[in-house]
């Protein structure tokens, strides 16, 4: 059904080199985005045009497709193909970036000249580091045909199945979204660095609402490989939550024990990612700044059962730092920095923070890349077993509209949503109203009581459910 072939655009992009791209589409299952060979050739075509001291090229290519449904009908669906390049030119400590999605000779030359012109204009930055040279990267396979092949008809089929399930359950409205992408990211520079990663990803979520407006249930999944995702089980779970959450009983705000489902744990734990900056800590601008100067590395900061790490190989993510997709003006000296398994918190102790190359050199440590993936370890029990072992707690499905209120303590505010229940005597006794909460992930993880087995909740997150002794619900939200 989708007749625009990514390969057509790729053929045109590499034509300048007289290649026969069809021969170079390898591995053959990579249907969208530049292949490694194509990316290397196109990068060299761009690098060879520059007279700057240094040039960096970042290529992002592929197809993004989606289908959305609501009020028991498909509302929008489509796909978009693009190939874009970020070109960063350097003259000494001056650097600037130009991004374009035009690949004819004239446009590429104009883009390179544009980056050079801006770089000459950019004042000196004495924090600029020299370009990284050739690096060695781990293999992190992340491209799956089952995701790349999700066409409009297949996606409409998933939507139709959710809508049928909602109708058969009587009086439910289904709303959901299935998005997938397939493509590649590549980095190259004039110092000899080349990094490439092809990947697919999907994100699927469904919300079921009762027609009286008093019940709402959510379920979702994300990852790289669509094969093996049981969308009908997700629909059934959302329906069950919607029906169970109907007519919530009032519960006063206050500090309660909570069981957070994996999605809610991911919502909370990922708030730590940006706080893990070594520079902010060293400069006294973070929760991880030590009182007398320096950082809190080596200190016990949360319960000893908490271990938090990044692992691009396990998650099929790019095994290198990449700014592609961050948008715009972020000239980073860390592009292409190898990313491996990195432990942030181990047994409750802060083990590491992320260091840019500049800050690492200044502090005399090795650079550590940004936590692009987050994995939190768990314990060997299911969510159901976790609930069964709970005397009394609020069970939270997911969190919403989270905003920082105090960076000094990593404090945030947000809401609960789409399934809030009271657990009593090891079972869900009844639904309760939603809450606004004001709390810090550091506080929740310090009040930790038990964990479940971790599960993949999104393309970059794998976390368990948890029970914590205290969570601060500051006011009631009437919203359903």
């Amino acid at each position, binding site marked *: *059904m989708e*007749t625009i072939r990514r390969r*057509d*655009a790729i053929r*045109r992009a590499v034509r300048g080199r007289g290649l026969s791209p069809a021969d170079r589409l390898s591995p053959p299952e990579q249907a969208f985005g530049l292949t490694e060979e194509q990316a290397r050739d196109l990068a060299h075509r761009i690098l060879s045009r520059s007279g700057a001291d240094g040039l960096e090229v970042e290529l992002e290519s592929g197809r993004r497709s989606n289908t*959305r449904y*609501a*009020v028991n*009908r498909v509302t929008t*669906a*489509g796909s*978009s*193909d*693009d*190939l*874009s390049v970020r070109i960063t030119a350097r003259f000494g400590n001056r*650097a*600037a970036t*130009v991004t374009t*999605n035009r690949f004819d000779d004239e446009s590429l030359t104009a883009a390179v000249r544009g980056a050079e012109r801006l770089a000459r204009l*950019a*004042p000196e930055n004495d924090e600029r580091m020299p370009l990284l040279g050739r690096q060695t990267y781990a293999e992190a396979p992340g491209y799956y045909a089952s995701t790349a092949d999700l066409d409009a*008809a297949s996606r*409409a089929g998933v939507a*139709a199945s959710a809508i049928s399930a909602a109708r058969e359950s009587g009086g439910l409205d289904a*709303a959901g979204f299935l*998005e997938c992408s397939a493509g590649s990211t590549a980095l190259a520079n004039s110092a000899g660095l080349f990094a490439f990663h092809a990947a697919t990803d999907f*994100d699927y979520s469904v919300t079921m609402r009762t027609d009286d*407006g008093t019940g709402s249930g959510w379920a979702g999944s994300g990852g790289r490989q669509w094969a093996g995702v049981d969308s009908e089980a997700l629909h059934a779970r959302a329906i069950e939550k919607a029906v169970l959450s109907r007519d919530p009983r009032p519960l006063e705000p206050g*500090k309660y024990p909570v069981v957070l489902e994996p999605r809610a744990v*991911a*919502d909370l734990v990922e708030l730590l990612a940006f706080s893990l900056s070594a520079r902010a800590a060293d400069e*006294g*601008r973070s929760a991880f700044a030590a009182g007398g100067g320096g950082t809190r590395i080596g200190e016990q900061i949360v319960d000893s059962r908490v271990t938090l790490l990044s692992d691009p190989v396990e998650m099929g993510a790019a095994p290198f730092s*990449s700014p592609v997709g961050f948008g*715009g*003006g972020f000239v980073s000296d860390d592009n292409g920095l190898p990313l491996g398994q990195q432990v942030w918190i181990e047994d409750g102790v802060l083990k590491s923070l992320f260091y840019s190359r500049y800050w690492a050199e200044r502090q005399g440590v090795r650079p550590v890349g*940004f936590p692009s993936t987050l994995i939190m370890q768990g314990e060997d029990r299911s969510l159901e077993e976790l609930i069964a072992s709970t005397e009394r707690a609020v069970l939270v499905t997911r969190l919403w*509209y*989270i*905003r920082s*209120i*105090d960076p*000094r*303590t990593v404090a*945030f*505010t*947000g*809401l609960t949503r789409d399934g809030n229940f009271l657990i009593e005597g090891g079972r869900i006794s009844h639904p309760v109203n*939603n809450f606004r909460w*004001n*709390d*810090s992930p550091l506080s929740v993880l310090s009040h930790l009581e038990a964990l479940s087995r971790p599960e993949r909740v999104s*393309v*970059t*997150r794998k976390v368990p459910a948890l029970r914590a002794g205290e969570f601060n619900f500051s006011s009631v*939200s*009437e*919203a*359903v």
Partner: protein
Amino acid sequence: MKRRDFVRSSALAAGGVALVRTPPGRAAAQGPPFKPASRLPSVDPATRDLLLEALDAATSAGAQYADARVGLYLDQRVGTREEKVTNVSEESSLGLGVRALVNGSWGFAASNELSRAAAARAGRAAAATGAANARAVRSPVALAPVESYGEVGWSSDYEIDPWTVPLGDKAEYLLGLNRTALATKGVSFVNSSLHFVKIEATSATSEGTIAAQRIIRTNPSMSITAVAPDRSDFQTRGAVLDPVGRGWEFVRSRMTTGAVEVWASEAVQKLSAVPVEPGAYDLVLHPSHLWLTIHESIGHPTELDRALGYEANYAGTSFLAPPSEVLGRLRYGPDFMQIVGERTSPGGLASIGWDEEGVKAEEWPIVKDGIFVDYQTTREQAAWISDLTGITHSHGCSHCQSWEHIPFQRMPNMNLLPAEEEISEEDLISATDDGIYIESRGSYSIDQQRYNFQFGGQVFWEIKDGKKTRMLRDVAYQARTTDFWNAMDMIGGPRTYQVGGSFYDGKGQPGQVNAVSHGCPVARFRQIRVLNTGAGGRG
């Protein structure tokens, strides 16, 4: 990590978000009016060919309606930190997107390739996707009628195109302001940046309108951080200015040395500000703060698609439902509360000539004399409520972030009109015995039906016996939307009216951003619950 992965996987992804708008029949509130530099774009013949090719392919493949756009989207950013330029960048993206309605169902396709063959392929692909979706449709989409305008042009109201100002000059301008901030005793860090957007887009519908439009937007920002000498505390003054649909002249006139001196001194004063005692206070909210409360608690709930469940899986639904029970009935606030939606104000971020469905921009009441009277609509949505409102045409709210995004209903500029008499900010403060004055946007969060919200700010002053006394800190207020607006008892006059806004209002799946402005006067709200966000926010 890719930014979109992070945003998509995160509950942070919830939609969130100064210039001068002349309220209808009232004088401009602030400063001299900017002179328009209208150089209206016209339809380029090659672009027209591509659009017609795409529309023809879609309709030949069975579409009863199609729209298409070719757009060049330019971004330019300059960022600095203290005495260093941290980044200089330019982005450009050019492509074509087509939307087709087949058997009452939508399909969309987009490509960065610009050729007649690629345009035709996109038109057919959009129609094929629409046909595939028709299996999951009960009631077909019906579009409200629209006039055919032929070939038309429109431009933002700007004086100096930011692309005509050398980037080096922009960087030097920011570095000069950073020096001013750092010269203030106690200031340790300063970040400043400029982000400019220029869009040259031509949209066409199968019903005979082709609109060539040029959009210019400017977003200046600065945050100034003061660190206590013993490192026990740090405080930042940010959100100093809001973006506008104007050019370089806005930066020169508003991001000045004098203004930076005030912001820097506020950052330092925040270190010694007194923690707020939780309780109920009368709040005097400056327009630089109040616009965001309007955006979140009036802007989003009045999106008709949202009210009817179309956003249920993402941003949520709305307390303003069902329409038959709230239109013309729900009291939003006091009799003097007038909220208008519009895409026509000069300098407004959501201002446009024609929307993505060929509907001409207009202005209309959303809340009239305190009563909720209308929603934001597109052509698909107009008929859903026309028997309640008597309005059969679209309000022109169809928008897409770029050529690769599907057009759907997005927020127009929405404004709280000032009092007709000249009531000053001083009048509000002197009438307040025990209150808090709040400037600029801080942390903000609101639930998925837009009942319960919590807002912080940047600068808080205690008001005692009619006077601003000392600076407070760690202030946030919580309220229920209609309780809050019904607690509004005073608003300022035209001279207190200012416009705020955001480049980053989020909605939809996949998420799209929309730039939107909100104008309002200073206003007072009685007995609102205030909490202290210090101590991990758990106090």
